[in-house]
């Protein structure tokens, strides 16, 4: 069991965020796209949750649903998003606005486009404070400098006056993190925060993000297709396939003992640079592609690509069922759940 999979806060605390039966559908000309279709999970205070899946799996839409930023033709059709005693799915725009940026912040995939090109980064950092606090202009400036310093921007006093185009991609993402974290949100949603960056910078930024959330006790939902990154950071992992959760549980448990063939496939496609015998191993891949989400096959959506699929899989939806997590911990959060008719039982 890796250190990161240990639940840092207590098991019994009430969750900060509790998503139940969330359905976010898009009503398009081509039919209804069920981007998120009955997703439930909890995030405890201070927890880091990895939300993993291939592109088009509905990961980002979960983040946007929580933020209340789903635009037509999309809509949260059903389910609840409990956050701090309120159901975000039922809040009005004004109430949502006061939560966004203050209690829940979000980081986007591409730092090259997330910052407004016409304003200095100082202006954009201070905007968050201006919106959610009563700080004076000077205090805001001081806080912005302090925050830029924290995210590792050298000479923040001068850099404050610079425009986004004067920063590299990695530096911009640091600025974005600073903007997201400056109001000390209780939950940070990071949507593929390192995908658009150089590999060398990815690890740096993930470390920075982890450090930032740990320092302020913020919970983090890390949305990514990079299971390797998640396995190093997350306490819990939720694996999505075609808008549904296929596996959910403690990070270490999922990496060590995946039950769902899809999770297994994802893990096997992580490159291992250090095979003990130094032999070059062929990377395995999951055969086929993510199906068109508008025309999902009956039964398990993964069945067409699954080596273990049976006739049952093609007819009946598997239900997400919780089983005792093998090994550490107790209580509801330690459960390892899988939606599979033929889950893997033994793993190497």
């Amino acid at each position: 069991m890796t250190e990161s999979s240990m639940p840092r806060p207590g098991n019994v605390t009430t969750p900060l965020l509790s998503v139940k039966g969330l359905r976010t559908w898009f009503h398009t000309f081509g039919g209804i796209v069920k981007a998120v279709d009955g997703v439930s999970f909890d995030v405890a205070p201070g927890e880091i949750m990895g939300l993993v899946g291939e592109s088009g799996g509905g990961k980002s839409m979960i983040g946007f649903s929580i933020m209340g930023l789903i635009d037509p033709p999309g809509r949260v059709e059903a389910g609840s998003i409990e956050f701090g005693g309120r159901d975000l799915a039922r809040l009005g725009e004004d109430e949502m606005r006061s939560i966004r940026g203050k209690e829940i912040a979000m980081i986007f995939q591409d730092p090259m486009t997330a910052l407004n090109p016409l304003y200095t980064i100082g202006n954009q950092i201070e905007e968050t404070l201006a919106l959610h606090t009563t700080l004076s202009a000077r205090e805001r400036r001081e806080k912005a400098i302090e925050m830029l310093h924290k995210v590792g921007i050298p000479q923040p006093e001068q850099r404050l006056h610079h425009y986004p185009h004067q920063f590299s991609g990695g530096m911009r993402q640091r600025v974005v993190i600073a903007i997201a974290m400056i109001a000390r949100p209780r939950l940070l949603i990071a949507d593929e925060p390192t995908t658009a960056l150089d590999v060398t910078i990815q690890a740096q930024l993930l470390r920075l993000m982890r450090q930032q959330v740990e320092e302020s006790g913020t919970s983090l939902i890390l949305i990514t297709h990079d299971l390797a990154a998640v396995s190093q950071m997350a306490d819990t992992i939720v694996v999505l396939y075609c808008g549904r959760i296929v596996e959910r549980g403690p990070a270490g448990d999922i990496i060590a003992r995946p039950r769902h063939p899809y999770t297994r496939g994802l893990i096997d496609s992580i490159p291992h640079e250090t095979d003990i015998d130094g032999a070059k191993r062929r990377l395995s891949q999951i055969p086929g592609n993510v199906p068109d989400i508008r025309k999902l096959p009956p039964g398990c959506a993964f069945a067409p690509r699954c080596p273990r699929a049976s006739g049952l899989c093609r007819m009946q939806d598997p239900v997400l069922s919780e089983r005792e997590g093998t090994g550490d911990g107790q209580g509801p959060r330690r459960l390892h759940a899988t939606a599979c008719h033929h889950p893997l039982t033994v793993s190497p």
Partner: protein
Amino acid sequence: MFGYMIKRLIQMVVVLWAVSVLVFVMMSFTGDPTFMMVPLDATDEQIAQARRILGLDESHLVQYWRFLSNMAQGDFGRSFVFRQPALTLILERLPATLEIVFLAMALALLVAIPLGVYAGANPGKPASRAVMAGSLVGISLPGFWLGMVLIFIVAVKLQWLPSSGRGPTTEWFGLRVSFTSWEGFRHLILPAITLSIGTLAILMRIIRAEMVEVMKQDYIKFARAKGATAKGILFKHGLKNALIPLVTVFGLMLGDLIAFATLTETIFAWPGIGKLLVDSIYRGDRPVIVVYLMFVALMFVVVNFVVDVAYALIDPRIKIK
């Protein structure tokens, strides 16, 4: 910046020279103005004398040379009709034109920006479709027709506003203007509305199209994720980005309105430079036409320069070099 100014200045001189050639050649082929100056029963001798006085008896090349060298010395020629320096004539009437043009542009911006932003931010809504349909009407309406309809309804039937002329003017920093008095301002309203409609419609469509694009950008979504207000998202983050392409069009339209407010000025008997141009063309007052066209060319060069500076002011990524 200094090098940029020099470059612009050289460019200006080249443009003006090219226009001077074009204008001079065109004028030389539009008939002999002498016959418009002399009495119908003038003798051949009188005609020849008139030609000599006007300097038309020499070859085109010599005429052009004299035209250029005079201009270089600040002499832009005298009006055949008014016996006054052509430049003075134009400058005297310029304030009248600027007045209705600026009012028209202000009106256009005041209406086009909110409507364009609204329609761009809510593309599917019925109200924004109505706005777009309205803008099509605005583009399609010919100015002279609109002017006459306005005169008929507002001035003749309702008798709310005067139908023509400039009304009382006051001296203001050495310029004769009418917006300073209520009666003068009343005279401004109808011509300004007539002039603004087409511009308003086009500006609005451009703002809408730009806003539709801008609102899809990540930084808008990021601003929303920060908790920015709807107003902040539309105007701080949205509109400023949408303005960049608008500035070019705005500059060109401003130049266009100043140079060619001709129709509107004619309908409302507005004593601006547009009306002067039309009158001068009727009278074959060649020096005035020439100076007018040179003036317009100069103005467009200046407007372009201002547009470039405005770009650099709005967008930090653009550096003036």
